[in-house]
């Protein structure tokens, strides 16, 4: 069934969009990532104009994250206090990111920069997670299930403004979460994604939060950051396509529910190693695009972006 999208001004198959939404939704529920880093390139691929894809994707992430966070909320795996602290940093970062994005756009090379950002961050994060979770699996097999000791970071504990995060079982300074939120906010505005794939590892490895709490908390703060981004795009660029968003999110919210169920039945190390593999695969694809000679050297753009 073909459907014409009023803002994107293209006609696409409705079932294709439902399927894409569902697939990405499952991943979103399993790993606590919004799925934007997968969905946005997929939307480019089926012919949605990039500006519309990025803006609409933000709106869709709101829906799938909200659906996912409700499931986590019932299992009490959302650290609201930590989420709020991250959010304060995140919103500030997103606003800064939009300013930075528009500046880069005026210089021309914004496409390349976004892609390089993707390759570098996905590569680093995917690689680190992959090695770490492999080690964790090996260790748990060797020592027969003893919990590996969490690395304590002295410098984080030495900082002022300490706060108790009961759900996460942490007593740390608020400065690291605010900084993490800020950096992720900037990156997510530039890269046009929710930022979960950066946020989740940052929470695990930098803040030392337990994996089970990380997913719900990440979803919680993604809702607000992407809602903010959606409003920015809707009011400045008019590029949010609500018909596209509805089709994606119908698939997405159902997928997210299924994903949460799958995620709850898997071990933390398995979840992490799968997410790492996924992140590395997307990274490799984007890196190849930059390194191999493209079949079409020319690209068309609207004249406004000069």
């Amino acid at each position, binding site marked *: *069934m*073909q*459907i*014409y999208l*009023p*803002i994107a*001004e*293209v*006609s696409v198959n409705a079932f294709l969009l439902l399927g894409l939404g569902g697939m990405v939704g499952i991943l979103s529920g399993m790993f606590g990532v919004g799925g934007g880093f997968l969905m946005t390139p997929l939307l480019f691929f089926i*012919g949605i104009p990039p500006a519309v894809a990025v803006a609409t994707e933000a*709106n*869709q992430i*709101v*829906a*799938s*994250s*909200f*659906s*996912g966070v*409700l*499931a986590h909320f*019932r299992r009490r795996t959302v650290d609201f206090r930590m989420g709020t602290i991250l959010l304060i940093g995140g919103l500030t970062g997103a606003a800064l990111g939009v300013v930075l994005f528009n500046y880069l756009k005026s210089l*021309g*090379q914004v*496409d*390349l920069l976004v892609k390089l950002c993707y390759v570098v961050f996905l590569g680093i994060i995917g690689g680190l997670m992959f090695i770490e979770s492999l080690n964790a699996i090996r260790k748990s097999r060797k020592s027969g299930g003893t919990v590996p000791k969490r690395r304590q970071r002295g410098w984080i504990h030495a900082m002022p403004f300490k706060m108790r995060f009961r759900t996460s079982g942490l007593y740390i300074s608020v400065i690291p979460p605010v900084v993490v939120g800020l950096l992720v906010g900037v990156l997510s505005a530039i890269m046009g994604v929710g930022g979960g794939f950066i946020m989740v590892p940052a929470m695990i490895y930098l803040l030392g939060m337990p994996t089970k709490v990380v997913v719900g908390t990440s979803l919680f703060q993604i809702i607000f950051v992407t*809602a903010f981004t*959606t*409003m920015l*795009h*809707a*009011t400045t660029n*008019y590029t*949010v396509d*609500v*018909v596209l*968003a*509805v089709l994606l*999110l*119908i698939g997405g*919210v*159902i997928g*997210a*529910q299924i994903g949460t169920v799958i995620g709850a039945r898997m071990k933390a190390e398995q979840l992490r190693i799968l997410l790492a593999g996924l992140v590395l695969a997307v990274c490799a694809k984007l890196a190849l*695009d*930059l*390194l*191999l*000679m*493209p079949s*079409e*050297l*020319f*690209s*068309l*753009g*609207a*004249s406004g*972006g*000069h």
Partner: protein
Amino acid sequence: MRRIVLVTLLALVMPLMATATEEQVVLGLSRDRVAITADFDGSDILIFGAVKRETPIPQGDPLQVIVAVSGPSTPVLVRRKEKKLGIWVNTDSVLVDSAPSFYAAATSAPFSQALSDTEDLRHKVSIKRAIRSVGADMNIADAQEFTRAVVRIRQNEGLYSIRENTVAVDEQTLFRTEIDMPANLTEGEYVARIFLTRGGKVVSNFQTTIDVRKVGLERFLFNLAHQQPVLYGLMSLAIAIAAGWGASAAFRALRGT
């Protein structure tokens, strides 16, 4: 009305250029507006007509018909990638002043037979002539390559086409063709031009417009997004939240029972 004006005008000019305007087009369209609805997936437009003449059919080269439909023209920025430091990056860019969003030219004979090069230059019928690139960057030696890229990319997307031998001409008087417009149309006034040619020379031409507009829900959403962006954004968010909550509640109900 326009036809009446044209006929009276012709009547005045006729004695001066008797041979050139003996034949003129009487046109019909299966539709003069295309409504883009939610389930729009392309549209076929039947363009048909007759040649009106006061004198017998002229001897010599047979009558050929060219039908060209073009969408609204906009400037297009064309970028080219080059390998720098091992990766492919956009380097040169050229602004093509005006390129139609859609262009289809149907002819009743091979294009070069139906229209001579000089006439093409005058009336801008072939794809490469329909695109205008005046202020090409002097720093880029092969600016032509960029214009060709626009044609190539849009041809691959099915937006530009030359359809040779697709206009049927009967008895040098009746003609008909069908132009199928793809699903990814943009809004605007589409111009349909009809040329009658003999021996590659244009003997008469006629122009009309086809209105392509979004209607119904599509129109409403498009207007809302542009006129009430805050409301539109909030509506999008409300739908997202409602859908997220709905799915969660539905799944809980399913699992609970």
